[in-house]
């Protein structure tokens, strides 16, 4: 099982001939992901280490049977790339690109959401189901397969937590980086819903950060709809208001979006929140061992 990416994933990389796309696309393939195609307009007919390159996503779907797209194209072309994937009938679109204007993402989101497409990102590290498929830039070697679902707005912080879990002899069902932008395709709730339905996932770790109110909404969702234990870590307790902390979405606006408010909301529904990344790993491992 696992969620979003697995053994049924047939991956097309949009931007496979660029340096990032090539490096990570081939890395994903080396991990065992079924990389079936690349798309770069004007480079149709070429190949990257045996992976056929097409001019359009529609061709990659028709000729190579792609069902999942990974987007590495620069910010100013990325909205077009997402629309193209959605309109070509791709069911899962994962966009790594950072710095897409928020208004563009608002339109992309409003367009793609009713179509039932799973959009992950932008400004995210991708999705990894250990032992099955890796789609994106997550360093798969630090994770092990297991029963802990991990969903996060941050990359390296997630790697740290997954690594600590693996060091303690446990592993993850799927790691989902939903992205650090103000508007991302999938929310915490979208991913929690899938973890709840996934028989392989027994525990969930939610890694949040300052900005917006997605963690608060997730807390309400967990209280009302989830049977599986959820643990959490929130970054940015010491962040000053009005400053963007690395991620475009990590900003306290006025008094809203603080780490303290998020922690309170999560704890109010019985979710244990770790003080450090190590502590949250310890909490979930202790629960899993019992």
């Amino acid at each position, binding site marked *: 099982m696992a969620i979003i990416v697995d053994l049924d994933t047939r991956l097309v990389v949009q931007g496979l001939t660029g340096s990032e796309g090539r490096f990570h696309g081939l890395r994903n393939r080396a991990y065992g992901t079924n990389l079936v195609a690349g798309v770069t307009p004007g480079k149709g007919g070429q190949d990257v280490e045996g992976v056929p390159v097409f001019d359009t996503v529609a061709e990659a779907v028709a000729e190579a049977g792609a069902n999942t797209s990974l987007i590495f194209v620069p910010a100013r072309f990325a909205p077009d790339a997402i629309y193209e994937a959605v309109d070509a009938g791709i069911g899962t679109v994962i966009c790594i690109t950072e710095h897409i204007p928020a208004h563009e993402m608002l339109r992309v989101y409003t367009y793609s959401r009713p179509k039932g497409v799973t959009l992950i990102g932008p400004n995210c590290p991708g999705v990894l189901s250990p032992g099955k498929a890796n789609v994106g*830039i997550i*360093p798969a070697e630090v994770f092990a397969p297991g029963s802990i679902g991990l969903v*996060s707005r941050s990359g390296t912080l997630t790697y740290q937590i997954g690594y600590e879990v693996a060091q303690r002899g446990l592993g993850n069902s799927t790691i989902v980086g939903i992205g650090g932008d103000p508007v991302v395709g999938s929310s915490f709730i979208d991913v929690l819903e899938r973890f709840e339905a996934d028989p392989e996932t027994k525990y969930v770790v939610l890694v949040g950060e300052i900005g917006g*109110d997605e963690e608060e909404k997730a807390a309400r969702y967990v209280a009302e709809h989830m049977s599986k234990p959820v643990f959490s870590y929130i970054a940015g307790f010491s962040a000053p208001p009005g400053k963007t*902390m690395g991620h*475009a979405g990590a900003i306290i606006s006025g008094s809203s979006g603080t780490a303290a408010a998020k922690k309170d909301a999560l704890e109010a529904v019985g979710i244990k929140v770790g003080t450090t*990344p190590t502590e949250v790993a310890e909490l979930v491992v202790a629960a899993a061992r019992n």
Partner: protein
Amino acid sequence: MDLLEYQGKQLFKQFGIPVSEGRLATTPAEARAAAEELGTQVVVKAQVLTGGRGKAGGVKRAEDPADAEQKAKDMIGLDIRGHVVEKLWIEEASDIAKEYYLSITFDRGAKQPLFMFTMQGGVEIEDVAANDPDALIRLHVDALEGYQPWIARRLVYGAGVEDPGEQKQLADIIGKLYRCFVECDAMLTEINPLIVTPDGVVKALDSKFTVDDSALYRHPDIAEFRDPGAADPFEAFAREKGVTYVKLDGSVGILGNGAGLSMSTVDVVVVAGGKPANFCDLGGGGNAEGVVDALEVITRDPQVKSVFFNIFGGITRCDEVARGILEALDRMKIEIPIVVRLDGTNAEEGRQILADAALPNVHVSPTMLEAAKKAVELAA
């Protein structure tokens, strides 16, 4: 990126939203000249990126050009909530009969632009929302449908505006503000107060404007508004170097890789009883060039007494990062202690490389919390 009042008003003007005539002044003499040129009574307004300037003496009406000069003299250099006044906006004075409020925010929770309008302007909108919520009309816009005239009708009739002349002008301003919001890639556009003069003219008396940093590449005119002098000098230097950096107020310099881990590093220093001096994200890599730039930015702040270097090696391996650190330290002179925590891919090799180099001011700690404690101790 936050814009000053006069910059926001310049954009309003471009989109046809009525504003008063004004001139920018940075000296008392310029303020006087501006008042003479405008030929009316003027208001001298401090241009600072903070609220509450009226109460702090940052908005004053001047009787004549000589008075404008005097008011400007009093105001330049004034500290308003930590912002020193350097620029003044000298504007034609307006008579005010009524004060309304109009804004559009980028509601990331709802993933839609949000209009807010009330006839109770000129005060903090949070107070209106708390004390008289029915007077505040809130309306989301579908990003694909965009602005439609019914939106203005809902706002204007909903808030209870009865004068037909006002209704017409407001509808026009509401439509134009939406265009301005979308076409400028704004995260916030606010007019408070949106005034009605005694002779029934509606115009924007103030502006609050935030533009999406990720969209500045397609708004070179707005990007030019950025005043390097107005920013924190360390942050301005970081921007120059292309380093992601936020100045904080403590003594432990912080360098992490990735936004989340770097934020977490700042938090852990506080947990360890210390005061972080900054937030700094090295990004995905760990090459010597990036490390040199980041360390240069961090150690430029004289308050920094130690540096906590917190790295999780993923695709970038820790041994590469360790070599990057050594190369960086070889290329620059840093005497303050540096505590390095390496974890993840090839962490053991990385730690060994640093141990073998045996630099007197480089300390290697195995965990994040221990490293934080060490860095705090060394900064004391």
